[in-house]
């Protein structure tokens, strides 16, 4: 199968949906002739022009709110927020307007709106460009939340998001944009709410998203050499969340280990742990364990950053210790 980058997969998903539905358009900062802040791919702008690929000023509340107004009056906007830390300047629109519009008004409107935004930061992006705030959005009823970890997932989930009549927060991990992976030429959609079992195993269930999936997979492959069989699950979407897949995995392994880049306290790992402590308690042999970023803003210097956010080394030793081996 051909291999394309996560960034190209994103662009391709939008392109295909724009081809199919003339109501689909994109808006955001530097997405036009510049081709996006983190990758240089002006394909959409070249093909669809200024009207359907709209560069905006630095007005994030307007980006989201205009998109919402357009979504409920016949369009299907795909809004981009340049990095997820600045969703903070558009939170009222996201949380009080987009998420509540349909429910609050009695279910009489469709809100086909996607907000794409990079999450997690590059290396050395420091405190204001490195956050992983996905649990906030999972806490807000009315938003679907997707977090693809591969080019294949990025394309398939984004196409589903754009076709959806519900608002979707679509988190793209910034460190994955250059990652290449197999993406079929044929059209496909990935349904929301289906976790992806990346690797089967019997000793431990590890749940991870986005860039952490890759770190965990490397660790799992290393541990395999020592005869340890780890099951790795990527939820793919946090809302809807496929708890069944995780619960049946734990039924098999008896152990849950959650890894995420977000800070530990009130991260999505807490939710997973809570669900399992509620509904999978009887399967558990050992306490649950979370490995997450320390509860600090992300520091700039490489060695402090590397310390703050789980890296392969830390994941490896934490799992090894957890398994008591």
């Amino acid at each position: 199968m051909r291999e394309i980058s996560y960034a190209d997969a994103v662009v391709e998903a939008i392109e295909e949906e724009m081809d199919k539905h003339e109501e689909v358009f994109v808006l955001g900062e530097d997405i036009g002739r510049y081709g996006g802040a983190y990758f240089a791919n002006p394909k959409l702008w070249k093909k669809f022009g200024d009207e359907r690929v709209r560069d905006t000023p630095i007005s994030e509340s307007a980006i989201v709110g205009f998109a919402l107004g357009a979504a409920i009056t016949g369009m299907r906007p795909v809004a981009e927020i340049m990095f997820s830390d600045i969703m903070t300047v558009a939170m009222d629109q996201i949380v009080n307007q987009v998420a509540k519009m349909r429910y609050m008004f009695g279910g009489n409107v469709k809100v086909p709106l996607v907000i794409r935004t990079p999450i997690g930061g590059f290396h050395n992006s420091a405190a204001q460009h490195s956050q992983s705030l996905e649990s906030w959005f999972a806490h807000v009823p009315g938003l679907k939340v997707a977090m693809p970890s591969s080019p294949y997932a990025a394309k398939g989930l984004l196409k589903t998001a754009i076709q959806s009549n519900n608002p979707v927060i679509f988190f793209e991990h910034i460190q994955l944009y250059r990652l290449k992976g197999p993406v079929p030429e044929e059209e496909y959609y990935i349904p929301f709410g289906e976790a992806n079992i990346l690797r089967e195993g019997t000793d431990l269930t590890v749940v991870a998203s986005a860039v952490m999936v890759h770190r965990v997979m490397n660790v799992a492959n290393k541990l395999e050499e020592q005869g340890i069989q780890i099951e790795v699950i990527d939820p793919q979407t946090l809302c809807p969340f496929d708890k069944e897949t995780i619960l049946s995995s734990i039924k098999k392994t008896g152990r849950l280990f959650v890894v995420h880049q977000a800070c530990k306290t009130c991260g999505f790992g807490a939710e997973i742990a809570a669900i399992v402590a509620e509904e999978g308690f009887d399967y558990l042999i050992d306490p649950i364990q979370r490995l997450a970023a320390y509860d600090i803003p992300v520091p700039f210097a490489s060695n402090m950053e590397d310390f703050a956010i789980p890296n392969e080394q830390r994941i490896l030793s934490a799992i090894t210790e957890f398994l008591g081996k």
Partner: protein
Amino acid sequence: MESNKLIELLEKMLRIRHFEEKVGNLAARRMILGSVHLYIGEEAVAAGVCANLRQNDFITSTHRGHGHCIAKGGEFRFMMAELFGKSTGYCQGKGGSQHIANFDLGILGANGIVGGGMPIASGAGLSIKMRNTDQVAVCFFGDGCCNNGVFHESLNLAAVWNLPVVYVCENNQYAVSVSVKQASLIHDYYLRKDAYGIKGCQVDGNDVIAVYEASKEAVERARKGEGPSLIECKTYRWRGHYEGEFDRHYTYRTKKEIEEWIDKCPIAQFKAYLIENNIITAEKIDQLEEEIKRELLEAVAFAEDSPAPKPEDALVGLFENE
């Protein structure tokens, strides 16, 4: 202006006034719950502006939204049922006073967040432009909203994208207790049009014809693709910020000031004008008001008789099924 049109304007104002008086009364009796912000004294704005709109035009509204809703064609009974939290209400009891919407009527929703509707109306304008229709989007908001960030972002972006949006500032001179004089050095907010390079003007918001004419021009410009406008209507709210504020409004304004504005009642003024110019008789007006009152009683009865939603209905409607 044709007599018909003038009488329609009066009727709209009367519908709003009577509705609001009834709601105030029901709120005092705790038959309507939640916070209720009445539009009494400001009727000329909604009536004057919406008289220029078609059913498929859009509006966004505010916490003080009943007037906009009525002016855009909202029906008493469904509004009242919503205020009563009944399943026959416009939002099936999920919204209440601050969240009435009806998409068929182009009413994109009242809003509990000051400024929340500004980018939404603007986005409806963007959609109109992209779908290439001659609809218009109207955004209602208060003076208090003019100092919030979304005002700035919305007007600026609608300007540079040349969107068919009419921004209607209802400057009733207070945001709860904070007067425009405490809120900014500029008290005539239409002046901010120049910060965005758009058209705009100020009108006496208690003069329904003035409001109608000014917004007519703005709406027509928008329909022709000539971009957004900012219209400031100077007006006044007679009641407290919300029902239940009672006499607390005397902490920030005087009885005298309120009375002076009551003397400038948009409805009384307009009635006098119509009668003087033989457009309608006092009797006809009384008759009109009687009809409205009757319709209101029916609406209240409808709301009272309507079934309350089932508690579990709370779980319905979050997402559209897919």
